[in-house]
């Protein structure tokens, strides 16, 4: 198992480097100009000077080297400095966002909490709902419950979040005035009242996202369960007089979970990307929102960094998924 883990880790590193290269190269080709968003009253000469000041003129391999160094060495040491009060990174130029003129990592650090709150919670809820739904749908295949659950989950898959999000706002914020349509990122949860507020403002985005998650994961759970339920060992276990509940939860579920876990883990980063839309609608202003505004503003350092971080997240989830898969299914460890 340890060997297996280390092997997976070793494979992950080159993947990350390759991804950063791809991401960087792709963005280098971008024709856009970060100055294009400035008002037309600012003259081209001034824009050109601003461009030089941002270091946009340097050749791309120089910028790639610098970026890699900043991303891989400088930013971690800034982080260590922040944690332990050391001075590893003193006086070194950090990665600066072209749009905000502030360190990219600080921006991302600012945006992470709300994304984690909303996306994380949505994913948790989505998964927590998907498991029982998927299990029961499979166990009672073609029962009314299954029909409804499958129908709803297909719908959850088929209705894009930007549509369902607006519908929810119209209903809950405009018509009923129950829930806010704008997410307040400055809200500090300090007492029950602010916790209530936090829950209220998370309700709609979390609902939209978890509907999607539930829809997708429950489909996978259902089909994995169906696959397992047809196996011989299920019948053999029944033949031993084991109860159905026990059979489902102790025997079938662990077997079905192995492939589903990797789908759950792999889905997490995609949900982050998918949250772009939801964040836009509810003004959650998390990492997804930062990404889309940076793309629109041609803020390459920010876009590149977020993309690589997302890729890193995917690689890590992949790794985690493999490890959990290995833990759940002993046969995997030996390739």
């Amino acid at each position, binding site marked *: 198992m340890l060997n297996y883990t280390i092997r997976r880790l070793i494979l992950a590193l080159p993947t990350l480097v390759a991804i950063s290269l791809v991401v960087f190269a792709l963005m280098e080709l971008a*024709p*856009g*100009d970060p*100055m*294009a*968003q*400035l*008002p*037309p*009253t*600012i*003259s*081209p*000469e*001034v*824009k050109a*000077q*601003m*461009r*030089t*000041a*941002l270091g946009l003129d340097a050749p791309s391999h120089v910028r790639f080297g610098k970026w890699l160094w900043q991303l891989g060495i400088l930013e971690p040491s800034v982080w260590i400095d922040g944690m332990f009060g050391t001075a590893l990174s003193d006086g070194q*130029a*950090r990665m*600066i*966002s072209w*749009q*905000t*003129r*502030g*360190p990219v990592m*600080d*921006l991302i650090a*600012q*945006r992470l909490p709300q994304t984690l709150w909303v996306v994380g919670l949505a994913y948790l809820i989505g998964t927590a709902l998907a498991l029982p739904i998927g299990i029961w749908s499979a166990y009672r295949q073609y029962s009314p419950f299954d029909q409804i659950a499958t129908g709803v989950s297909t719908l959850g898959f088929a209705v894009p979040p930007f549509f369902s999000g607006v519908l929810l*706002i119209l209903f809950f*914020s*405009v018509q009923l*005035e129950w829930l*806010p*349509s*704008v997410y*307040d*990122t*400055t809200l500090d949860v300090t007492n029950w009242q602010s916790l209530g507020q936090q829950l209220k403002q998370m309700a709609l985005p979390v609902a939209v996202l978890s509907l999607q998650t539930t829809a997708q994961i429950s489909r996978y759970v259902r089909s994995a369960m169906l696959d397992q339920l047809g196996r011989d060992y299920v019948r053999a276990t029944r033949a031993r007089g084991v109860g159905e509940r026990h059979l489902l939860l102790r025997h079938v579920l662990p077997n079905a979970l192995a492939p589903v876990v990797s789908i759950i883990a792999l889905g997490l980063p995609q949900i982050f990307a998918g949250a772009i839309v939801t*964040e*836009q*609608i*509810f*003004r*959650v*202003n998390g990492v997804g*929102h*930062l990404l889309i*505004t940076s793309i*629109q*503003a*041609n803020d390459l350092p920010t876009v590149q960094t977020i993309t690589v971080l997302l890729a890193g997240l995917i690689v890590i989830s992949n790794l985690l998924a493999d490890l959990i898969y290995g833990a759940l299914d002993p046969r995997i460890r030996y390739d």
Partner: protein
Amino acid sequence: AERGSDGDLRILYWQAPTTMNPYLSGGIKDNEAASLTLEPLARYDPAGVMLPWLVDVIPTLENGGVDDDLTRITWRLKDGLRWSDGSAVTSADLRFTWRYCTAKDGGCAQLEKFADVVDVETPDERTAVVVFSKPKPFPYGPFVGPQAPILQAAQFADCLGTRAPTCTDANYGPIGTGPFRVTEFRPGDVVVYEVNPEYRDPTKPAFAKVVIKGGGTAVGAARAVLETGEFDYAWNLQLSPDVLSRMQARGKGEIVSAFGSLVERIAVNFTDPSPELGSARATVAHPHPVLSDPAVRRALSMALDRKMLSDIGYGPAGRPTCNLLPIASENADTNCLRQDLEGARALLDQAGWIDSNGDGVRDKNGRDLHLIFQTSTNSVRQDFQAVTKEWWRQIGVETELRNIDASVFFGGDPGSPDTVQKFYADVEMFAGAFDGTDPEVYLTTWTCGNAPSPENQWQGTNTSRWCDPAYDALAAKLAITGGIAPRATLAMAMNDMLVENGVVLPLVDRGRVSAHALDLGGTAINAWDSELWNIADWHRIKE
């Protein structure tokens, strides 16, 4: 009212502020967010009139504040001005601000404001003299308006030149003189302010805390003020009129608008953009085969229903216009406001453009009246394109539409064929405006020397590449004329020349539309300055 007695003020800018230093951004959203803390010496009121702000009087020729040779202007700060950290505001701060913006490689977005400034002298603590290298008939560039406020020298001392972007703390939380000071800034997301304890008027501001939230869309912003009441003020609601009016009908807020100098226009290309010309493409060496004909330009203009365009695209935020400058003029051409398809057809017939082969497109000398119409990708502009195409079709002009991503179109990259400046099309649509109230720089746009060309790496602003010595002469005269009234007359004459010659076809005077909650008092939307310019006076109306 008592300072800080009205609680929280919640403002929604759907384009979120990304920095609080106007010298590093120049974006309207950033300038406006900064205007709560950073203030200029003078600013404009909603009518476009200059108001003394951190000074007691505006220096002019008449009161001796401006030297007769128009090269020096002397500003005298109000007494007792303090920064929000308690230190005094001095002329050294003014001098520093000039040095800050003009430092080498600082990437200052407001460099234009300090054009020709050679020195800022500080004879005493409260007096600053801006010295120009040549006569400045309009010396109100530096330190006037929300784009050029005063920075605190102490805070930005280490941020000159290339170090400017590294001063994150200062850029995100500048110390200012305004009614509020920043307590929290999350770029692209939210700004939180509290009352500036050192603010010069002890009874203001009425609000204790201001939150400017960013993100989302214009519809969402309008909804949050007009429908759900979650916010008190929403900025820049460019939405269709019926959407807005129905939202307003819910009785939670009110829509306000103001007009400035932003005019949506169609620019006409006077040079031949055809690709066959190779490197001589779209240069003055080759006049446009069709659009050089004034009758065609005029007919194109007559075929437009500007009122309809304004209604479709901007509603309350637009008004049809025939002029580039907002100053109303009695002899300005207002006829254009009436669509005259018949007249346009007659004009073209007279000029010899007739449909000789019956394909519905007029032609002359074997040349079809076929135009390529380009603009940036934006749903309102595409609607305009579609409607215009239809109207022009009705007068026998065939139009091919093209839209280009805004970042490319406005990007000015000399390597791209699709920029406003290269103008490899026959007509193009975009909006233009000028800063403050003086149009001199703006009007020099259309002088011969400003034409983009391969020689200047396509960097000029006269995208039409129109060239008229008479116009250049007027521009030269404007550059040396002092006094508000004479300058206005000259500017109007230049405007008329541009419009009558059909260099540009102005379409819609685009205003700003915002919305505020019904119980928010004191707002005065302002197109010449920051919309939040008088936020110190805003208050909660108590029933």
